[in-house]
C-alpha cells in the first residue's frame, strides 16, 4: 500500500505537483494517468525518495522510504529504461542491485528468465534496444520480489508482443495480491490493464475512481447507421418512435437501440443499409475532456489556432459528453 498525503513539488514558481493525496491499494492494478508534463514522473520519483517534496509525504506500508531497511524487497520500480550502466552486462547490473539489498544471486537468473533476457544476460546493456532496456528495468523492479511495484510508462519502446506480455505481467502481479501502480499518458492502454484510475493534470488530482465507474460515467454507446436512403430511414425510425442524431457524411447515430432491432426495422421497410455498427465513444476522448484545461503543451492547428486543445481528434460528433460524470473528483 502506498499512501500519498498532500504531496507538493515546486520548482521555483512553477508547481509541478499540487497537493496530491491518494492511496494505492494492493490486489489491483492502479493506473496513474495524465497528459505529458502532468507531474506523473515527479510524483513517482518523490514516492521513491529520489526527489524531495516541497511539502507532503509518501508512506510505503506505513513507513517513509528511507526507513525501509532493504527497499528493493518492499517496492520495485521501473522509472526510465536504461537507468543502468551501459558498460556493464545485464547480469552484473542486476548483481550490483541484488548485493546492496542482500538478495540471493539465484534470483537474478530467475528475473532475467521472467523478462526473457537470459540469452543476452552477459551482453553489455549499452547494446540493448529500447525494448530490451525496458525489460531489464522491469527485471530490476522484480528483483527483490516486492509487494509493491511501480512502472513509469512501461509500454514505451516495447513491441506488440512485449506490450501484451507486460499487461499480463501486471495483471498477474495484482492477482497475487501485490500493489501495482503504473503510469501512462494513454487512456486506451489503461483501459486494458487498470482496475482503478488516478487521473492528474498539471499536478492536480482530477479523478480517483474505479475503471468500471470511469467507463460507465464517461463512455456513450450508440449504434451507427449509414444508408443511401437516409430520408426513408428517418421516417421509419420516427414511425417506430426512435430518435436519431445526424452525424457527418450521412451517418445516423442512435442511442440505446440495439443494431438487431434497427436491422430488422430496415428489412421490414426494404431499405438498403451500407453500415450498421455498435459504437462506443472512446475513453481517450473522455480523458481528453477531463484534462483539457490542464494540458500544458497545446498543439496549435493553425496560425490563429488559439488555445483550444487538440479539437481535431476523434470523429466529429462523438464529443458529446454523456452526462456530467466527468466532473467527478475534480478539485479533490
Amino acid at each position: 500500500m502506498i499512501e500519498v498525503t498532500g504531496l507538493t513539488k515546486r520548482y521555483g514558481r512553477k508547481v509541478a505537483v499540487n497537493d496530491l493525496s491518494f492511496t494505492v491499494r494492493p490486489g489491483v492494478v492502479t493506473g496513474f494517468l495524465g497528459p505529458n508534463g502532468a507531474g506523473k514522473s515527479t510524483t513517482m520519483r518523490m514516492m521513491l525518495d529520489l526527489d524531495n517534496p516541497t511539502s507532503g509525504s509518501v508512506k510505503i506500508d506505513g513507513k517513509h522510504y528511507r526507513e525501509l531497511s532493504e527497499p528493493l524487497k518492499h517496492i520495485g520500480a521501473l522509472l526510465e529504461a536504461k537507468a543502468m550502466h551501459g558498460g556493464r552486462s545485464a547480469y552484473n547490473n542486476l548483481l550490483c542491485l541484488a548485493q546492496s539489498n542482500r538478495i540471493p544471486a539465484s534470483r537474478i537468473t530467475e528475473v532475467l528468465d521472467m523478462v526473457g533476457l537470459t540469452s543476452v544476460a552477459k551482453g553489455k546493456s549499452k547494446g540493448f534496444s529500447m525494448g530490451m532496456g525496458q525489460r531489464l528495468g522491469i527485471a530490476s523492479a522484480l528483483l527483490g520480489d516486492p509487494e509493491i511495484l511501480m512502472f513509469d510508462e512501461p509500454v514505451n519502446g516495447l513491441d506488440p508482443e512485449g506490450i501484451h506480455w507486460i499487461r499480463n505481467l501486471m495483471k498477474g502481479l495484482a492477482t497475487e495480491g501485490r500493489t501495482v501502480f503504473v503510469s501512462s499518458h494513454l487512456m486506451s492502454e489503461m483501459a486494458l490493464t487498470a482496475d482503478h484510475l488516478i487521473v492528474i493534470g498539471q499536478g492536480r488530482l482530477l479523478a480517483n475512481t474505479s475503471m468500471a465507474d470511469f467507463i460507465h460515467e464517461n463512455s456513450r454507446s450508440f449504434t451507427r447507421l449509414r444508408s443511401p436512403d437516409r430520408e426513408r430511414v428517418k421516417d421509419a425510425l420516427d414511425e417506430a418512435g426512435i430518435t436519431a442524431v445526424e452525424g457527418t457524411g450521412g451517418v445516423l447515430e442512435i442511442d440505446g437501440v440495439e443494431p438487431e432491432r434497427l436491422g430488422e426495422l430496415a428489412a421490414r421497410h426494404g431499405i438498403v443499409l451500407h453500415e450498421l455498427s455498435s459504437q462506443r465513444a472512446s475513453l481517450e476522448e473522455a480523458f481528453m475532456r477531463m484534462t483539457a484545461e490542464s494540458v500544458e503543451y497545446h498543439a496549435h492547428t493553425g496560425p490563429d489556432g488559439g488555445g483550444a486543445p487538440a479539437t481535431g481528434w476523434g470523429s466529429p460528433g462523438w464529443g458529446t459528453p454523456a452526462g456530467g460524470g466527468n466532473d467527478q473528483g475534480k478539485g479533490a
Partner: protein
Amino acid sequence: MASVPAVLQSEWTKIRTVSSTTWTLISALVVTVALGAALSALLNSQFGDLGAAQQATFDPTYTSFSGMVLGQLAMVVFGVLVVGSEYSSGMIRTSLAAVPQRATFLFGKILVAGVLALAVGLLTGFLSFFLGQALLGDHGTGIGEPNVLRAVIGSGLYMALIAVFSMGVAAMLRSSMLALGILMPFFFLVSGILSAVPGAKDVAHYFPDQAGSRIMQVVPDALNSSDRPYGPWGGLGIMALWVVAALVGGYLVMRKRDA
C-alpha cells in the same frame, strides 16, 4: 538502514564490472612508472651536465616519481568516473532507490574506490621507486635511507587522495564531463604554472597537488623547488583537508538535490 557490508560488496561489484576501472588504473600505473623510469635514465646519463647546486640537492627519490605529473591524471579520471558514471548513465536513480541512505551510498562507494586507488598507488610508488633507482645507477638511493620509505608510501597516499578528491568533486558537480573539464586542466596546467609564478606561488603552495606532493620529496629544496611553509606530513594534511572539503561538498549536494 542499509547493511554497510552489503553496500560495500555492491560497490565493489560496480567497480570491478566496468572496463574503465581497469584501463584508468593500469594507465595510472604504467604512465607513472614508465615516465619516472625514462626520466631517471635520462638524468643518469646527463648527470654530469647538471650545475653544482643541482647536483648537491639532487633528490633521486623524487626523480623516480616524476611520472606522477601525468599518471595522476589517470587517477583523476578513475575517481571522476567512479562517481560521475552513476549520473551519466542514469544509474544513480536505480542506485539510490536500492540504497536510499545518501551517506551510506556515497561514502561506501568512495571507501571501496579509495582503498583500490590506494593499493594501486602503493604498487605504483614501489615500482616507480625501485625501477627509477635501478636506472639512476650510482646516483640512486636505497629504501633504507632516511625519509625514503616515507616518500615511497607517501606517493601511494598521494595518488589515493587525488582519486578521492576527484570523487568528491564529481559528486558535487554530478557530471563526469564537467568534473574532468575542471580537474584535468587544473592538475595538468594551472596548478603547475601558478606554482612557478612568483606572485601566485604563495597561494599555489596550498593547492591540493602542490601541498600533497611534498610528501614524495626527500631533499626539501631539490630541483629548484622553493621553500614551503610546511613539512611533508603538513603538506599531506593540507591535501587531506581539500579532500575532506570535496567529500563534504559532494555529500551535501547529494543530500539536497533531487536525483
